[in-house]
């Protein structure tokens, strides 16, 4: 029940943001995100950002996966 993908914030105006991924763009709501900033990756579901993607944790997870044994 949670089809959502990471998209990058290109522009913010109040509680609306333009986000992009793979060359496609949409304006979405950032109403329930704390301090969203241009350049942040956010998880986009049904036209709203439901959470930020922590890029540091993402890299850590990937490193863990590469070294998994």
């Amino acid at each position: 029940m949670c089809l959502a993908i990471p998209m990058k914030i290109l522009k913010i105006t109040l509680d609306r943001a333009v986000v992009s991924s793979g060359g496609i763009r949409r304006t979405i709501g950032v109403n329930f995100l704390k301090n969203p900033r241009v350049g942040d990756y956010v998880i986009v579901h049904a036209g709203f950002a439901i959470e930020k993607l922590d890029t540091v944790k993402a890299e850590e997870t990937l490193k863990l996966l590469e070294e998994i044994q």
Partner: protein
Amino acid sequence: MKYIDEFRNISIATKITELIQREARGLKPVNFMEVCGTHTMAVERFGIRKTLPDNVRLISGPGCPVCVTPKDYIDKAIAMADIENIIVFSFGDMLKVPGTSSSLLKQRSKGKVKIVYSPLDSVQFAEKNQDKKIIFLGIGFETTVPTVAASVKYAKKKKLKNFFIYSGHKIMPPAMELLAKDKEVNIKGFLCPAHVSAIIGVKYYRIICRRYNIPCVISGFEPLDILQSILMLIRQVKSKKAKVENQYSRVVKASGNIMALRLIYEVFSISDSDWRGIGVIKNSGLVLSKGYRDFDAEKNMDLPDVKTSVDKGCICGSVLKGIKTPLDCKLFSKRCNPDNPYGACMVSSEGICAAYYRYRK
């Protein structure tokens, strides 16, 4: 695509699959349940089931909003679309679900049902078309509810008198607890939903884990996430110690999204809810709260009564709980198939019944 493709890496996937095969050797057969339709979809799409050892069984729980929405909700939504001057807006998922004698898809061809990607689109349509009454079908779990809540708040801010919600929203934890208690289902581990968890955090899983001693791993949706989470569950089972682990730490915070939770419980309040195939689960549904009752479709409109038929022979409920497989169903493949779904489990193309249908000989 950034932060997606990296989590589909085939050499890492192969490595984890080999680890799963190795570490599951000698293990008594285990049932791991995933409770999110998007997990069911990902498992099918990436062909993960075929790579797992026979003693690790992935069962799909009732995490598909399409599958658990009661038939009378569909019948009522179809009846709403029949009323002059009303347009029903919905997520695409709902359109093919069979009602008693029709479906929303059939209403769509008459122009009375429109598909939207975001519930906010339906409010903005209502704003621009004040001569029409707009009803939005609110289905989905905690991931989707804040988006509907934000849209209703926008409607309130704009003082719209022609926008309504028909809520069929449900929340996950009570259903998970029901299944955790059920000895017939015999769950040895939960793959917890990625984005529901992003909203609600880890609190409820800790309760379930403690009470029923069932390992819980919050898992992302990419193949590496799912495979790593299955490995983590196997390791927990072998260590005989159940705990809650967050594999999807790049998105899920332990506390969840507090702003989203506040929004949900400002606009909605908890009620009992009927789950198709399972029955009523206490405190598992959401209805519009007192301050937002003006937007409640059922309370503000003269809606006709509907007569809903009983699903004869359909065992979707047992399939959703993982107790039976689609092969146990008398209707499977004959009366009920992807072209003509009878029960809700066959409607979703990644649902357990549709997946079994594909693998039939």
